[in-house]
Structure formats: C-alpha cells, structure tokens
C-alpha cells in the first residue's frame, strides 16, 4: 500500500507538472480511522496529500461529470468500469481523461472490523500486506485482510482496471469466484411473502437521506425521479411504500450499468445492504444478455438499446 501511495504521488506530480492534466482526482488520508476523503489536486506541489490504502471505498467517478478540464484520475477495476460507463453515457470524454489504473486488492469493510473489536473505539489502523492491525485505547489486534473485505470485493472478478493510460503496480490474475450470487439465489428461493418481509425488514431503517444514490456514480441525473414534482412519483414522507419505490426504481435505473463497486452500501449511514437490489439485476442482466457493465467502450448496456433482431421472441 505504501508503494501505491508513493507511486500515486509521483505519477500525479509528473502529470500535473508536464501539464498532461489540469487536475488530479485521488484520495487523501481521512480525519477519522478507516475513512479517506476524495480530493482534487491541481497544484503539483500538493500531490503529496494523495494517499492510498484499503479504505478508498468511495467511487471517484462521481467527480467526473460536467467537468470540462483535463483530469487525471485513479481507477481500480470497478472504478475504471464506471469511467467506461460514463464515457459511453456521454458524461465525460475519453480524451479528457488520463486514467491511472490500480490493480486493486479490495477494500476493507469498516463495519466488519468494528464488529470484530466489539465496537470498541478504533483509533488507528495500519496495513501490512495481507494483514492489518487495529489499535484502540486498550487493545491492539491484527487481522487477515482477506477475511474483512467488503462483500463486493470478495466476489470481484475485475480487480484490474479495464481502461487506463498507465498502471501503477503490476496487474495480477483475477480471482475465480464460485457461487458469487449465493445470496441472491437464497432470496430467490424464498416464498413471495417471505421475500416481501425480507425486503421490508431490510429497508425499515432507511431515512431517505439518499446517500446510496448520491454515492453512486450512475446517479448523475440533474433531477432524480424522487425529486420530480409533476407528477410526483414518490412521496416525501417515510411511508414504507415510497421508500420501497425509491429503492426498487433506483436499482432498475442501475440495471446493466452497475459495476458493484459497493459505494452505495458503504455510504449508507444506517447500514442497509442496498446491493441486494442491484445485485439481483446485475445477475439477471448477466444471465439474459451475458453482459457486465463497463467492459467495452463500444457497446451500450443491453437495456439502453433497441434491437429489431432481439433474440427474445416477445419483443418482436
């Protein structure tokens, strides 16, 4: 990780100095443990604020839309796929970007770590290759990183960036994941009333802060459907129907576009596993169209296009 940080700083400095880019988007070390803050560096001298560790969970792609300058940006596998999605959805131009790829080893689930130390306050986390050490006032514990990865990182099969101008570190072999959708299958197997109970229970804590939506790079619409007033699709109160409507429609809007970067789930202040919605659609889109989002600059997501020769009879 230290090497990544150094490399990132060096690369950003070089790019800013030789004016390849006007700005560089990366992370800086956060003010609280297990939290880094996205940062925009426009001055080569400030490249040293850049930082990298396994808590860079927020998707940097969020910061690309509507920019007109030349941008250097860090991209892990999923983030690079979101950049591709942004390019094909006209949110940014490829030639505006200098993508610095990072073969990602996965992000650590800070909530799992908290649980592991029984909610005692963590004051410092240090990483050391495949393990990390957590320090508090009266404890000091070391964990195997693999065990504490975010759920999406555990099943990730695109850790290497798919679109980049330069890579930091060495791309490694992608992991083989079996039964990546075991959770989805489990829900699919439930009786419909059980399923409904499951989802109702799942979102019961939702406070409609829209952190999941806003943390998602796919949600760039100037006016979200939840904010439309003519007609008003979704009520503003915390009526469970409205909340469910929000979550289901949000997921549908992401169908075929989601890269399972996990930003939504990580951002949720009340810990709702919102990926349960998007994952089901990711699976369906894969099963139906053999499609994974953000792997190609030439093709649009299957639900975005109309084909008169669609293989499904029903559409003809």
């Amino acid at each position, binding site marked *: 990780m230290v090497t990544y940080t150094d490399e990132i700083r060096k690369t950003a400095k070089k790019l800013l100095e030789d004016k390849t880019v006007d700005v560089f988007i990366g992370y800086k070390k956060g003010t609280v443990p297990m*939290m880094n803050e*996205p940062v925009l560096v426009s001055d080569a001298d400030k490249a040293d604020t850049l930082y990298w560790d396994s808590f860079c969970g*927020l998707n940097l792609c969020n910061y690309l839309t509507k920019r007109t300058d030349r941008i250097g940006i860090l991209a892990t596998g999923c983030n690079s796929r979101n950049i591709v999605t942004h390019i094909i959805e006209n949110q940014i131009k490829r030639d505006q970007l200098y993508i610095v790829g990072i073969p990602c080893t996965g992000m650590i689930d800070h909530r799992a770590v908290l*649980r592991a130390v029984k909610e005692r306050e963590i004051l410092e986390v240090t990483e050391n290759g495949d393990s990390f050490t957590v320090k508090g006032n009266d404890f000091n514990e070391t964990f195997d990183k693999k065990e504490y990865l975010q759920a999406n990182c555990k099943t990730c099969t695109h850790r290497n960036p798919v679109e980049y101008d330069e890579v930091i570190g060495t791309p490694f072999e992608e992991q083989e994941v079996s039964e990546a959708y075991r959770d989805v299958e489990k829900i699919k197997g439930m009786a419909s009333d059980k399923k409904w109970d499951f989802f109702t229970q799942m979102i019961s804590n939702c406070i409609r802060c829209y952190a999941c939506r806003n943390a998602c790079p796919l949600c760039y619409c100037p006016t979200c459907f939840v904010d439309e007033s003519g007609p008003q699709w979704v009520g503003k109160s*915390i009526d469970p129907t409205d909340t469910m409507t929000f979550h289901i429609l949000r997921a549908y809007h992401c169908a075929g576009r989601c890269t399972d970067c996990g930003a939504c789930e990580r951002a949720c202040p009340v*810990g709702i596993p919102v990926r349960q919605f998007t994952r089901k659609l990711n699976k369906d889109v894969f099963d139906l169209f053999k499609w994974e989002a953000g792997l190609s600059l030439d093709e649009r997501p299957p639900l975005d296009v109309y084909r008169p020769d669609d293989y499904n009879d029903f559409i003809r």
Partner: protein
Amino acid sequence: MTLKLFAKEQWLTTLEGLKESYKIFVPVRDGDFHTFMPLDEGKKPDFDYPNTRLSPKSLIYPQSERIFEYSLDESAPDAHILKETEKDYSPRAIVGIRPCDAHAFKIVELNFDSPEYKDPWWVQRYESTVLIGLGCNDPVSTCFCTSVGGGPFDEDGLDVILYDLGESYLAKGLTDKGEDFLAKAKGRTKADDASIKRAEELAKSASDKISVNVPVDRLKDKVINELFAASFWEEVAFSCINCGTCTYLCPTCWCFDIQDEVIGKEGDRIKNWDSCMFPLFTLHGSGHNPRDNKFQRVRQRFMHKLKYYVDKYDNGVQCSGCGRCVRYCPVNIDIREVCKLMNSYRSD
C-alpha cells in the same frame, strides 16, 4: 436538587415501574448500532453505549409527521376542511440521552419556540418529555462537545443526569420535571458522599479525555460577506456527494418541508425533515434554483450552523459537538476542520 442512587441490577425494574407514568425510551442495540426505542418493545436496553447512530431528535420532531388530514370527497360534509391529526402528548421519558443531544434541544428550541412563532407540535412534545441524561464516562475521538459549550456531564437541557458509577447510577434531579421523575422512581436510595465524590471525579476525567479543541471564538467577529466569499469553500465541498446523512443525523438540524399527499380522495398534510444538501430544498416554482450547485449547498450548511445562527441568536454555534456527521459522512467531510478554517479565515 435531589441526589439518589440506583443499583444497576435494580435499574430495569425501576424503569418498568415508571411505565405507568411515562412512555419510556431507552437505548437499544439494533444491529451494528444503537437507537432509542420504547422500553416495551421486547429489546433489552443497553446503557453501555457511546451514542445512538441517529440522534434522538426524531422523538420530539419526527422525520415525518402527519399534521392535518382532509377529504376531497365532495359528498363528505367536511370536504376540503383541514382537521388536525390526533397526536399523543402523554408524558414521555428519554432515559439515557447523552448531554450533547439534550443540549441540542436547547439549541433548536430557539427556532421552534420563539416569542414570534411557536411550532405547536414541537413545543407540546418537548414539554411533555422528560430527559434523563447519562453522562459520558468515555467520550470517543469524534466528540467535541467541550468546544461548543457543552461537556460530557453538561446539565444544560437535562431534567435528570445520571452518573454511571459502575455498580450503580447516581441520579441528580435538575428540574421540577426531573424531580418528579425521581420521586416516582422506585428502588432509589440516598446518595452517599463517596458516590458523589466519585461522580465529580468521573466528570472531570471525562472532560480531560476530550483532547480535540475546535476553536469557535472568532466566528462572531467575521464579516458575513467575506466568509461567504471565502476561497476554501470549493475545496471543502469537492468531495461532498450531497447526500442528507449529515443533516438527518444531526441533532440540531431543524429544516422541514410541508407536503400534501393525496391517495384517492383522502389527503394528508405532512411535515417532513428536509435537508439543505438537496437541490430540491431551494428550488423555486419558477424552476430557478438559487443554490444550484454543490458548493453553495455545502457552504450554506456550515454558514448556517457556524455563522448565521451565531449572529442571529447569540447562543454559540448550532452544533452540540456530538460528532455524528464526522463519523458517518461517507466522504469524510469533517465539521471540525471546516470550523477551524472559518474561525481562522482572513480575507486578504
């Protein structure tokens, strides 16, 4: 001012006994977090907690509150007439509330209960609620109550404060409402001097544990327009994703919106939390939006809390130092850092 001692092993029984007089809310562990729940909902109270994830403001000021109902059925005799929705103002007690959150109610009170205007629903619910505080023996690293006029054992806004002495709670009545609560509480014994002494020591050591110092002393001296035009806002706002987490978790954010919802012929007028982080917050009917971009909205939030409120009420900042926004912001925007920037800002 009464001082009473409650043995911890008897504490739950004591609370059960009070259920006749109050609807009692206690901190309960819910998944990874703590939250206030009514005592009778089958979950065990857990007073050994840093703080709740959501502030208890929703107990006085619900996220969504139906205030009126009406019918659009022309054949109904009361068609189009607003009828107030029945609300429950019976006495309630929030037991275990942290001093910062109680302090927050005092900050907010200036807005909801002013000489010019009173929000009847907020006021009635606040008045019917007794706040039984629990001092913080072990403040966490994001706590900065001491910087904003509070403290881990601050009594402002509380009716009773509890000191956790290990085996027992020392309860100190602070108001008439609080005294009344203690009088009804069974299983109390008179506090001995040793306990009182230990409580004092606890309070002191807790205060010392808060090392963070967020300077707010010069905010009032700044010129609003200069601060408004400060160059750091773009940088502060860069990482913000404009979610409502900070405002919805904040015990002092009070903004709301009134919405009508009609299903079929039955309509409700509902008061909902709103957030200055949302573009819709300031969208005009004309389509114009005076706070059309992110940095304007981020600036508004901090300016409101740390400057407008300060200037308007002369009551310190609109922040109780609970640290929730720092802890839960998905992009780590830290109000303590922003406050430092504002407090030390100099326009050159």
